[in-house]
């Protein structure tokens, strides 16, 4: 350790970071298409990527509104999960007895499979959007709650002592020390919750779709499966995956943006 600043570090080359996975993807798709053509597999059993792409374009008028429907439920559930999970975590961190009393129930909610609860929720809640929202929220809020709680509780003890020495009020400790320190934990939870909110929304749509309602992507998959329209099932599946990937990328970018100046997880290293 000398009395000089350390040099900044740099990351993997871009061509490797994006080029390598892209190449693998193209190879896999080409292999799939070739296999379908060489073996002359009929489209109603296994369509090739080109046939799926054509279906995607052809059925866009019905898939697009479905995508928006699923996306709306996912995003709303995530917003509620963020607000609810974060506030509950702050409440947990402010009094040990609250955490001890309520945390087990949060765990129960988390470990009970959503597929098992969804039918009940859909029966009890008339408004379908709200029912879907509740299902997606149940799966999405726990990672935010548990991560943020850990983050709020892992503040540097010396910093807390310092705040005491300066006579800081409770909200000041929360505002200046605990919340900023919990940010990386919160964002880690958010990244998981983003994917889970989508899963929750899809699962709920499946359950509700079986009852003959809804217009989300999962409903389109169910509908297409009854009619053995395999290419449309793949097209809807593709849209669901793409949505999941976009959600993940969005939160990864957000995390990097917020943490790049200070947190080890977001700092690029050399060699």
């Amino acid at each position, binding site marked *: *350790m000398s009395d000089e600043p350390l040099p900044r570090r740099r990351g993997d080359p871009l061509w490797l970071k994006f080029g390598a996975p892209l190449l693998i993807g193209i190879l896999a798709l080409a292999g799939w298409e070739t296999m379908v053509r060489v073996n002359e597999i009929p489209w109603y059993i296994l369509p090739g990527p080109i046939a799926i792409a054509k279906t995607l374009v052809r059925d866009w008028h019905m898939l697009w509104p479905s995508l928006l429907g699923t996306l709306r439920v996912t995003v709303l559930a995530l917003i509620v999960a963020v607000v609810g999970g974060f506030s509950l975590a702050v409440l947990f961190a402010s009094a040990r007895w609250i955490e001890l009393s309520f945390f087990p129930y949060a765990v129960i909610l988390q470990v009970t499979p959503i597929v098992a609860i969804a039918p009940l929720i859909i029966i009890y809640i008339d408004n379908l959007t709200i029912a879907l929202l509740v299902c997606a929220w149940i799966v999405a809020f726990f990672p935010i709650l548990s991560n943020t709680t850990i983050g709020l509780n892992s503040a540097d003890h010396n910093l807390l002592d*310092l705040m005491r*020495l300066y006579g800081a*009020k409770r909200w000041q400790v929360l505002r200046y020390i605990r919340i*900023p320190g919990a940010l990386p934990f919160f964002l880690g939870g958010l990244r998981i919750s983003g994917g889970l909110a989508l899963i929750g929304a899809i699962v709920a749509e499946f359950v509700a779709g079986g009852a003959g309602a809804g217009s989300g992507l999962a409903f389109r998959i169910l509908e297409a499966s009854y009619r053995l329209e395999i290419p449309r099932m793949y097209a809807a599946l593709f849209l669901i995956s793409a949505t999941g990937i976009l959600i993940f990328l969005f939160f990864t970018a957000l995390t990097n943006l917020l943490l790049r100046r*200070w*947190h080890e997880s977001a700092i690029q290293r050399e060699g």
Partner: protein
Amino acid sequence: MDPLVRLTGVAKRFPNGTLAVDHVDLAIEAGSFVTLLGPSGCGKSTVLRMIAELVRPSAGRIERPGLPEAGTTGGHPELGFVFQEPTLMPWANVADNVALPLKVAGYAKADVKKRIDEAIAMVGLEGFAHVYPRELSGGMKMRVSIARALVTRPKLLLMDEPFAALDEITRFKLNNDLLELWQRLGWTVVFVTHSVFESVYLSNRILVMSARPGRIVADVPIDAPYPRDDRFRVSDAYGDLCRVVSRHLHEAIAA
């Protein structure tokens, strides 16, 4: 004249039953540079934390005749505390870290910008206000920590082995800078270390502590005149003083 801080018959027993310190009597005069010297685990940090009211004594009295009463929220902005680790907020840049005590006191950052710049300049970190802690070396982080402690213009600075984790060259440099600040600003410093050499170099009074339970077993005045510099470090007087203090420390460990 009243001392700044007076401890009378102070003892501390932790909830697990360990008697960390016992029968500590000491008075710290305004303007002095006092070092608590002792082996690891002798409770010297506990004494420091009791002075800062971060730890409550189990017996005895701690008075602060020379310091203002605690604020309404129990804070002591007239005290500065520097820990062994820099204890910075990694998400905040140097200026924001230094500004923390003032923010807690309710000042807006814009109103105290001058004080923050001053504090940063005092520790020799001009031009680093917008740098984040992880980009700084260990010595520079410690300088930020010191700047944060002195931004409230404290009367009493408490330092808990602040330079123990630094390499020797950096430590010597920070020792010199600390002495220079102490002389310039007229603080009172209570410094904790387990290094005989560091304690003799810095202080005008060394309290040697024995371990388990921690007690003050020797009170050694260091009369060498200030300013002290690298010439003092290699002088015969310094060597003699180190020998005397070392002997006390060995007796304390043997006791």
